[in-house]
């Protein structure tokens, strides 16, 4: 599904490398987690995969089902099935949440040569998905993320994911700023989306999110590389001993 090979990335404006040869493959139906200390390049990886400006790929490749992600515009990556749940979802005053979601869904469908969803069907679809995430109708009517609490913003990200039904979901520090209850809601939303044909890449600093979203594979990232890969027990090791031991081992 998602295949990253020897990916090297630097900032456009600086020569300092951020990713220094990342190799990672996410298979359909699997949940991969990337953990690592601050500044290890986790968020950069998510931005480069989804096509945010400001980065330059100096070597390597990233493909989704064989298609070259790095050659595509962000909107085409989305239409191809990639989704990034933002660490800091953006507020867009004056644009209703529903308008935004419907525009996005229909743009993706159009790009794939599918029929647009009618207003009625769309309303039904969103209401059903929103219910499981405990997102009320009032929140759907409000402008995108404006006046939303931290938890509401993250739930809104998961709602978008549920409506857009991407093949490959990347969650960038979705647990940041969430209390325990909000985290459980978000995790339940993600778990409900787990499917044999869908892959997940969950980026997190702490182990606690992985109590709720059980990963199949855990990677530790440091200084722009994946330094260790293991099962869920690797996350527990980080929780217990911090990153120090692992980094010392691999240094």
């Amino acid at each position: 599904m998602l295949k990253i090979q020897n990916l090297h990335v630097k900032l456009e404006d600086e020569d300092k490398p951020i990713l220094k040869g990342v190799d990672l493959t996410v298979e359909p139906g699997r949940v991969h987690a990337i953990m690592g200390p601050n500044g290890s390049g986790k968020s950069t990886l998510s931005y480069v995969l989804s096509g945010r400006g400001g980065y330059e790929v100096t070597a390597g490749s990233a493909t989704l089902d064989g298609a070259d992600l790095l050659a595509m515009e962000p909107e085409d990556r989305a239409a191809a099935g990639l989704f990034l749940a933002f660490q800091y979802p953006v507020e867009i005053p004056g644009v209703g949440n529903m308008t935004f979601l419907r525009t996005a869904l229909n743009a993706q469908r159009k790009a794939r040569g599918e029929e647009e969803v009618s207003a009625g069907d769309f309303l039904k679809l969103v209401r059903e998905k929103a219910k499981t995430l405990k997102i009320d109708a009032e929140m759907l009517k409000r402008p995108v993320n404006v006046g939303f609490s931290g938890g509401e913003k993250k739930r809104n990200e998961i709602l978008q994911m549920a409506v857009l039904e991407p093949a490959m979901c990347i969650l960038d520090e979705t647990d940041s700023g969430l209390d325990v209850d909000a985290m459980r809601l978000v995790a339940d939303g993600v778990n409900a989306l787990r499917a044999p044909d869908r892959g997940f890449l969950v980026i997190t600093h702490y182990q606690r999110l992985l109590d709720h979203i059980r990963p199949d594979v855990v990677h530790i990232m440091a200084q722009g590389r994946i330094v260790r890969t293991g099962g869920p027990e690797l996350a527990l090791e980080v929780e217990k001993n911090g990153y120090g031991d692992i980094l010392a081992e691999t240094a």
Partner: protein
Amino acid sequence: MAAPKPNAAAREAATAARLADLVLPRGGFTAAARAEAIARVRAMGLPGRRDEYWRWTDPAALNAAHPEGAAAFRVDRPIFEGRDKVRLVFVDGVFDAAASDDPALAGAEIALLSGAEGLDIHWAKALYGTLEAASHDPVPRPLAALNTAAAGEGVLISVSGRPARPLHISYRQSSEMSDVMLHHVIRLEPGAELTLLETGTPGARGNVVTEVDIGAGARFHHIRPQGRAFDRVLVTHLFARLAEGALMKSFTLTANGRLTRNEAVIRIAGDGAVAHVAGAALGDGKDAPFLHDDTVFVDHGAVGCESRQVFKKVLKNGAQGVFQGKILVRSGAQKTDGYQISQALLLDDDSQFLAKPELEIYADDVKCSHGSTTGAIDETALFYLRSRGVPRSEATALLVLSFLADAIAEIEDPELAEAVTGRLEDWLARRTG
């Protein structure tokens, strides 16, 4: 007496030439007001680039004896089509009875200026030219005085109740050389309410003055999508006076137009009155030059009043935006809440926005704020939308709508706000691709 300075002499000559060329209506009940207005024009002279409030906008096309000409807009589709309203149509400034609804249906007393000159409509006589005449201190507005003197047509509206349907003044341009002056006089009696829709291009060149006297507790809603002929030039003045507890909300949408100068002079004379003036302007210099100028003066002379100015401009391909807005709080106008924001969204590096926000406050217990910003599309927001699959052009359009939302929010009626948004979306679909 010393000889006038060369500049003053040139202005005097230009003013004399313009006045000599004007065909002045004979006037009936307005005769005295017109004579006084002519004297004001002579005394002030036509505007010039050296005047403080004309430094950024060249008035030459407005001053000239004749318009340079402008093709009518290809498809100025009706904007408030779905709404039941009473429509008065003016083609090149001439009333078109056949295309208009019966004014008697409006639920208000309505007369045409041209037809009323011989009558003694005492309320209109008391108002015609009065608010204009009171507006020249400290800033002269000679083009408005010129209008009072020379406008041959206009609508006189007196409202005592709350008509169910909006009144719609619809301008159409058919001649490429039409030079139109219209002068509307509106009176809202205490407790009355009127929604006035004003749409379309008055003429190749237009000079429109509206004087509105809003009685105690009365409410005046004004929604004005201006005509989209690319080469038209237009100057408008909205003069309003608000009595105790009165409310006005005026919103103007401008897309296209070689030159637009919209002036608003709002005199808040009664305690507890509320005045909102807002505008959204969209300019693309690709097909024709675009200069849009909002010049607003809000004069607080009473206690516990609120004023709000919200002006937004979206500019590309060398389009020019100008905002000159002033809040004056007179001594004694305590508890004034004055707000002013002017913002431009520049879609490229070629466009320009010039803003002059001013506050002048002589009371000590007031809350006044103003802000002005010029910026580009927010790249983070653009990426967010694109990451959800929205193509760049559509994402840009959404962010432009987002930018304009605060101005559109000044339209109280949701159905009318939606119609305005629809027009914006059409423009954006054509212009952000």
